[in-house]
């Protein structure tokens, strides 16, 4: 396989000569960003609560959440597949082979990362803030908004880690999305498909563009974090 073929493939993709490419990029971003947003809405408060709460069995929960960070995407995909299948408990929703199913599966993958990393960050911050916040009557759940806001720059890293996992995985979206052209085909499933067609330059080109997108997003988040962190150390 030669280098020129890869360059040509990338040029065709970016130049619009490969039909259906930009919708695939759009769908990938939509699915992954939605999953990260959902996971953030659920995982940030949940992780913060886990960071400050003390209850019997807490250590077991913490270990479980940490372990779930390594949940294999195919397993998550299979679980969501069985749940959403017409023969499964959530079958009537008719979500299988749709973007919703892919968002759900990726949320399941990202959530443990967000919860675990948030828990760690908030626990450290809580040690420092606990007495002051308690003095202000901000205890338990009432302390969570302050802690999340003050940890925001560290938490961006947690969300980026979640984004990385979601945007890179193929196992879960392939199973629950079905890789349907124009509907549930994402960057990663397209790469898998082109690889199976033996079009390795195109597959690699898609891969490089995916890496580029991830790089841009990380650079933007990092830059924003630097600007903000300078302001509120």
């Amino acid at each position, binding site marked *: 396989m030669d280098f020129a073929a890869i360059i040509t493939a990338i040029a065709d993709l970016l130049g619009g000569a490969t039909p259906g490419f930009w*919708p695939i990029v759009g769908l990938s971003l*939509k699915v992954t960003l939605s999953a990260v947003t959902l996971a953030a809405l659920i995982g940030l408060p949940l992780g913060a609560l886990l960071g400050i709460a003390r209850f019997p069995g807490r250590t077991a929960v913490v270990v479980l959440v940490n372990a779930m960070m390594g949940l294999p995407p195919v397993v998550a995909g299979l679980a969501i597949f069985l749940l959403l299948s017409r023969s499964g408990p959530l079958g009537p929703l008719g979500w299988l*082979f749709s973007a919703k199913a892919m968002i759900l599966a990726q949320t399941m993958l990202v959530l443990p990362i967000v919860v675990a990393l948030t828990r760690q960050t908030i626990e450290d911050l809580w040690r420092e803030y606990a007495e002051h916040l308690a003095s202000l009557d901000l205890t338990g759940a009432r302390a969570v908004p302050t802690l999340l806001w003050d940890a925001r720059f560290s938490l961006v890293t947690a969300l980026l880690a979640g984004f990385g996992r979601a945007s890179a995985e193929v196992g879960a979206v392939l199973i629950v999305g079905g890789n349907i052209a124009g509907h549930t085909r994402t960057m990663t499933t397209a790469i898998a498909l082109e690889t199976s*067609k*033996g079009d390795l330059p195109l597959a690699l080109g898609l891969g490089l563009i995916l890496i580029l997108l991830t790089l841009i997003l990380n650079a933007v988040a990092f830059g924003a974090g630097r*600007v903000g962190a300078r302001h509120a150390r």
Partner: protein
Amino acid sequence: MIHLARRTLLAAALGLAVALPAQAQDAKPTASIVVASTTSTQDSGLFGYLLPIFTKKTGIEVKIVAQGTGQALDTGRRGDADVVFVHAKAAEEKFLSEGFSKERKPVMYNDFVLIGPKSDPAGVAGGKDIAAALTAIETKKEPFVSRGDKSGTHMAELKLWKTANVDLEKVRGDWYREIGQGMGAALNTASAMNAYVLADRATWLNFKNRGDLAIVVEGDKRLFNQYGVMVVNPEKFPTVKAKEAAAFVEWLTGPEGQKTIADYKIGGEQLFFPNANQPGA
């Protein structure tokens, strides 16, 4: 200033996250059906050619979920597809007898070809007898890649070994590699290992990473590969879009669909041969 910049960035990020889902919801055609089909039909590029023509004509959109034949039939059994379009007649008839569909219609056939290294260490190139070729490969223990995924191609391969009187269970060894993946992956593996592999002609013709591989055996009648189509029984699954599914099957097996299938060519070569009207196919 910094304050403002930060706010703006945050707002922009949030706005993006909110706007994307809304924006990416494309305008939908009037109706859509899910067809569980095989990787070989997808990888061959047939659907990319055929489906836009059907959709333009009927306004019905077809979503293809490409799996191995076994998995595609299971997708139908779970009620997750409206139509199954596969190539393993025995498995299809079992599907029928279980009541998951009321009728199977033949659509087309293509043929399998035996692919192997140009150096041809088993010495089978140019022959027309698939059974003799397989026996030679087994005798010399030349590397052979099997799909191993219960797909139509895999089932056909197992049947051919039987025809060649090779008892795989007895002679199985390092030379026989089951990869448990789709047609494309099997070809990629064979290309990397310089191994023999059974492939459908369509996928082979559309396959780009050939390396040192070439067709070594073709044209044996026993290599014919029949495709059938079935509407999933709406009495089992009320969610099945019976009307649209039937329209798809009608079109596919009717004169227009059959002609479209015959028209699909790669490099001037016809890949699929319509035979909806051939009794017993």
